[in-house]
């Protein structure tokens, strides 16, 4: 097997990893600080994709339309994030896991029916935006330029989140709150306000990643569940709530899947969960995660 073939497959894996990271980072962030496993994260992503489609259609802007639509959709998702946090999540922080899972699963069902009602079952599609319509040549092998855009966006998000979490005062508070909620509260920092912002940020990322996938494939019902299961694998492997962990988890899942497809396509999906099982046995809290206290 020649180098260019393997390299091309490796790049396919990177492209998938970038997409997974976009979605999983939001999931991991909300879990890391809020300690809520947001099952509805995939639904926020799906709603973001549908919204971006409709906004793109309304805008009728040939070049900038998609980018503007993606940002508006992400902002709308952020607003919906405020609503969800205020109405539901706020009441769940003190509750146990089963209630959190059930309640966020309720959001999954609500959003699915909302999408069915508003958009029906059609599968929709946005053409790739300029200038990312074609492909670039990598060692003589074509690579879609839109995938580059997704990878760049993923890297941008990594840098932004790293800066936010490790270099700002807001980040200090986030890390402190993730470590010891009561202590931070005792210092006079309004925890509910902090949590709202974290959840809104997570919803914004979900909406943005949904919008970014719209030109990549098709926008259709069921895309929420399709992505959330792989994202769980990502955060379990990398470690819940850890930014470097999510990055590594996305990379592992993307590459294992890509090379699985090449060498043993029937088992490609199973390989991901085998890796997950191995990680769970050796380090139940994930590669970069911290054991629960």
């Amino acid at each position: 097997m020649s180098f260019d073939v393997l390299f091309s497959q490796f790049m396919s894996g990177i492209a998938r990893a970038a997409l997974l990271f976009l979605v999983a980072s939001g999931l991991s962030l909300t879990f890391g600080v809020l300690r809520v496993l947001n099952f509805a994260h995939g639904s926020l992503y799906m709603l973001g994709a549908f919204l971006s489609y409709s906004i793109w259609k309304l805008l009728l802007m040939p070049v900038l339309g998609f980018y503007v639509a993606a940002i508006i959709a992400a902002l709308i998702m952020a607003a919906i994030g405020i609503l969800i946090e205020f109405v539901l999540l706020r009441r769940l922080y003190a509750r146990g896991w089963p209630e959190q899972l059930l309640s966020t699963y309720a959001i999954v069902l609500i959003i699915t029916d909302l999408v069915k009602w508003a958009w029906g079952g059609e599968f929709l599609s946005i053409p790739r935006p300029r200038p990312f319509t074609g492909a670039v040549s990598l060692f003589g092998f074509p690579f879609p330029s839109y995938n580059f855009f997704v990878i760049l966006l993923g890297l941008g998000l990594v840098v932004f989140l790293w800066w936010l979490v490790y270099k700002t005062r807001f980040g200090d508070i986030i890390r402190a709150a993730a470590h010891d909620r009561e202590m931070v509260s005792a210092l006079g920092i309004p925890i509910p306000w902090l949590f709202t912002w974290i959840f809104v940020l997570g919803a914004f990322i979900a909406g943005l990643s949904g919008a970014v996938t719209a030109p990549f494939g098709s926008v259709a019902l069921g895309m929420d569940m399709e992505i959330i299961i792989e994202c769980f694998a990502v955060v379990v492997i990398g470690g819940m709530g850890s930014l470097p962990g999510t990055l590594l988890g996305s990379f592992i899942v993307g590459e294992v899947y890509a090379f699985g497809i090449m060498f043993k396509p029937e088992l490609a999906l199973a390989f991901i969960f085998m890796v997950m099982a191995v990680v769970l046995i050796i380090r139940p809290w994930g590669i970069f995660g911290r054991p629960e206290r």
Partner: protein
Amino acid sequence: MRKFAMLTVLVFILSIISVSVVMAQAKKAAPAATKEPIKIGAIYDFAGGCHMYSESGVKGIKIALDEINSKGGILGRKLDLVVRDTEAKVDVAVREVKDLILREKVNFLIGPCSSGTGLAMQVVHSEYKILRIPPIANTEAQTVDKFTPYVVQVVPNTYMEAIAATRYLNKKVPTAKKFCTIGPDYEFGRREETAFAEEIKRLVPGAEIVYEAWPKLGEKDFTAFITAIMAKKPDAVHGSLFGGDLVSFTKQAAPYGFFEKTPFIALYDFPVLLALGPDAPEGTFGFGRGCFFMDPNPKMMEFVGKYRKFTGAYPDGWAVQNYDAIYLLKAAIEKAKTIDTDAVVKAIEGMPFEGLRQKFTIRALDHMGTVPCYQGTIAKDPNYPFKIWKDITRVPGDQVIRPEASVREIWKKTGVVR
């Protein structure tokens, strides 16, 4: 006095006449009023990739029912419709079908979309002796492997569809010897690709399938499959991808120059072409089960008019085949002169039928219709604001239906006695 007596007699006679007339009318009207409507249960999968197909299918059913009811129904009985959702889950499908039969007391079933839910419900309604026509779900197992008299098929099954598509691909690229396949990893995709492998080896001596890709149903990112296929440098690729999955695949494969390098055939039907818009790859091959641009006969175009009046959009094939299913049922009931399931099943066996896709017959052996399969090449058309097909082939079902001997051979293995 005589005059008065005459008048009394006259009044008496008149009243008798009028009463008898009224009674006669009442007699005439009474059976119609007490005649119960015929109940049809449409069971579909309103979830995931099947949601849209199911919606279109139900629209086709509704248009047919409205037409039939406005002309007095079947055997003077109106048609009622109950729609149920399986959520594309096998357990829900079984529960809903039981409920339709036992509580709603439906006389006939139409649906579903997924071959998976279709096979699950087959056991249940066969037990209760209720006839089902599945105008979308087309796994061959419904009529062959798990044959039951209570299923009648009006769309090409996976075998017929794949055989016809394989022949078209072979006609278009006769020199191709090295193939890859890509199909959704469930009942439908597995069956289509198996039939492709059988047929291509019959058509091309020394044909080789060098790689099989099995993405899961609902896959969003096909990039790794595309690079893996292209690494094998196949002469042609057979796909059984459909719907949103095919839209995703097409958009992701285009930047790799996949469609310029590789002859490819897949289920590029009307909804997929519509969703892809300018991204639909011209020159790539498609197969389908019959819609307006595949078979623009007068009856079909008349239906297009009705459908556009009803919904404002062009009908896809899924609406066409559901519409045909209802009219086939009507023809069978009228032939049997009863709605008794066994009598209707008997009437339907070997019955010729002319629908939107022209003439076909329901084969008595396995209740498989000799319905046409269509293939074409994606192209622009000045008459439509979306891409359609050119070089269209209409393969009559009897050319691709599984031969009786082959069906019986499978029955020997699966234990069907007939």
